[in-house]
């Protein structure tokens, strides 16, 4: 059992206790040690459901689409966990998390769980803890997890490592066809969604993207789909979900699937090691008087930063 401010158990999360889930997310976000134990316990239950990431510039309608997708899924009898990430201030560390205002009352109920997350200094469109928060939602039994990223620019592709299907949301008049050729955001899309298709110019945007897709499939052999949607008078939502499902199906049947999953988990292990080691080194530099002299030497330009780093990571572990 859990008291509201206490530590929840993995069993409570799996049972569908919403307060336990909410509290666990807070612990994961703040890097609490209790979170490590929880994540260890639930890990075997993860890696099974579609995790749909929505990325794209600010104001293109990601929150509204998340809301309509959730309603569509619920009408099909599926439960939905949602994580919506907004930026933290680089100055105060605070944030205004406003994605919830698009969240329709009708979408509420026990089958939907909506959590706002601040990016807390992470670049790339998601917070550091987003991957683990998604796992908690999976363990709590949601059939689909939707992740809405920070309104992103051209290079915010961190959702790649979190989602199983990436939807890049765009609107008419965002740029000419050359934009679609550039590296970054356009490369990670499994599905392109041209939202606000009630506005003039959406056919042109769709055509430009179709031509991009016709240039060839991605490294995994998947050819991006393009869907036009509107959220004012909702349209295109079932088509958007079909495109997502088609990619999920392709992924499951692809011979590269296992290798891709392996590579991702490998990357996560490396990330984790980097985190642990850098945190440890930062702590030692701040507290160990012997190491202060090392920094002093670098400040005096008597030692270079690389050599100083070599001395901090023991030989044989480099």
């Amino acid at each position, binding site marked *: 059992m859990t008291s509201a401010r206490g530590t929840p158990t993995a069993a409570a999360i799996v049972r569908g206790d919403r307060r336990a889930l909410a509290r666990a997310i807070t612990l994961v976000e703040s890097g609490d040690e209790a979170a490590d134990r929880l994540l260890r316990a639930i890990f075997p239950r993860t890696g099974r459901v579609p995790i749909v990431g929505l990325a794209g510039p600010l104001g293109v309608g990601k929150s509204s689409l998340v809301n309509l997708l959730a309603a569509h899924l619920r009408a099909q009898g599926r439960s939905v966990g949602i994580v919506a990430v907004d930026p933290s201030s680089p100055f105060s560390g605070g944030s205004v998390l406003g994605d919830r205002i698009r969240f329709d009352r009708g979408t509420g109920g026990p089958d939907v769980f909506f959590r706002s997350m601040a990016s807390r200094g992470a670049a790339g469109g998601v917070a550091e803890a987003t991957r683990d928060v998604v796992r908690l939602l999976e363990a709590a039994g949601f059939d689909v997890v939707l992740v809405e990223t920070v309104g992103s620019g051209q290079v915010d592709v961190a959702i790649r490592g979190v989602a199983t299907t990436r939807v890049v949301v765009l609107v008419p008049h965002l740029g000419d066809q050359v934009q679609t050729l550039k590296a970054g955001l356009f490369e990670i899309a499994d599905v392109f969604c041209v939202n606000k298709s009630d506005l003039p110019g959406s056919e042109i945007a769709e055509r430009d993207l179709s031509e991009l897709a016709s240039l060839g499939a991605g490294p995994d052999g998947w050819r991006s789909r393009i869907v036009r949607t509107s959220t004012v008078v909702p349209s295109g939502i079932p088509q958007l979900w079909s495109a997502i499902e088609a990619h999920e199906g392709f992924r499951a049947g692809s011979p590269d699937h296992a290798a891709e999953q392996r590579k991702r988990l490998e990357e996560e292990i490396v990330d984790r090691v980097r*985190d642990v080691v850098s945190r440890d080194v930062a702590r030692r530099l701040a507290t160990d008087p012997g190491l202060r002299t090392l920094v002093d030497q670098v400040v005096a330009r008597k030692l270079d930063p690389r050599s100083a780093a070599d001395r901090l990571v023991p030989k044989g572990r480099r």
Partner: protein
Amino acid sequence: MAEKTRRTPLRVLIAKPGLDGHDRGAKIVARALRDAGMEVIYAGLRQTPEEIVRAAVEEDVDLIGLSILSGAHMALFPKVLRLLKKETGTKIPVFAGGIIPDEDARRLRRLGIRAIFGPGASLQEIVTTAQRLARGAA
């Protein structure tokens, strides 16, 4: 990358129960709390007490701020407090702002609204109170 050791930001839900559409005050308070380093979940207009409590649970907030200018505070605030107690069993502190007559404010404080701000309240006062209330809950 931000340092990992810094304190976890306080989380606060700002919501407007009922039917009035005057949200400028709520937005300004949200912005001030952001600048004070809090994570503000802005739930927006026309929220029912059920939705507010649901959001407070899912977002695991340390504090709830309610803004109201419609005059329906005596109907809506006690309902939020009741549901909150039922759903969470604990006391997430609730503060309020808006047009609330003194006599109502006194009654609402007795019912458990921890602080009430009317026209002319300074942002500094609101921020300081919010921090004090939220830390008490954490």
